[in-house]
């Protein structure tokens, strides 16, 4: 069964960088699990979190990876994590599925993990990545 998704409007970034509109990247959120989606919404309430999320979006729109912000999970070609490192952010990670189809790249924001454990704790990351990797979506045209 496919999960319900909603597209996140990121036009406010294109108002500053018009050329990024041509990057063919779209960002969606998985809203199948309302509770999980609401956790992500609540997490983005803080100013620092919003600022960092926008920096991550900039990296994504530039098709770049950066191990301090947005990095693919080792062993998973289609799963990446948005990294909110440091005690302030509680080492939070938002796991995303990367889907490439018909010349466009889709970032599916799916799961939020927050723990005081270090980012090197692979077990938690692997569990999240396995879960995300199995999810299927239909991207609207």
């Amino acid at each position: 069964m496919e999960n319900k998704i909603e597209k996140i409007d990121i036009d406010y970034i294109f108002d500053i960088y018009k050329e990024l509109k041509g990057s063919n990247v779209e960002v969606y959120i998985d809203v199948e699990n309302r509770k999980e989606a609401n956790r992500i919404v609540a997490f983005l309430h803080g100013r620092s979190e919003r600022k960092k999320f926008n920096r991550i979006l900039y990296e994504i729109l530039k098709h770049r990876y950066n191990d301090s912000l947005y990095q693919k999970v080792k062993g998973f070609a289609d799963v990446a994590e948005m990294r909110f490192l440091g005690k302030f952010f509680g080492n939070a990670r938002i796991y995303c599925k990367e889907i490439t189809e018909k010349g466009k790249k889709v970032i599916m924001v799916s799961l939020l993990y927050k723990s005081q454990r270090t980012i090197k704790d692979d077990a938690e990351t692997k569990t999240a990545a396995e879960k995300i990797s199995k999810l299927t979506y239909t991207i609207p045209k």
Partner: protein
Amino acid sequence: MKTAEKISERLRFKDDFEKIEFLADSIQLDILHELADNTDIRKTDIAKKMRVSNSFISQLFSGDKHLSLNHLATLIYHYDLDFKFELRPKDKGKIVRFSDYINESKDAFCKNAESGTKYYASKYKEEETRKISSV
């Protein structure tokens, strides 16, 4: 309100100050990527040269700490880098130079050199003022 709408609402810049902050962050990321992606320089080496900790470098790459001109100069100096910087109005089509006016109506200019100079100089000044105010 849909979940995605709530997120967009939160992420959207609230004022010019937030837009400028984002602009600063993105410029920093571009500079650091230019350095990390186009050279063989490692982050640990950068930390040594800049005499800062590895975690400080990670914070620079995440945008949590700001890259100073001093940091940049340190990197340029130690790694013998070529640094090019370009700043220009976004709308290139509207750049107007004094010489363009002269070429535009050379004949009119030649007819009355003195008044022509005054006229074109004032037009140029007008255009410059407009460009500065639009930035």
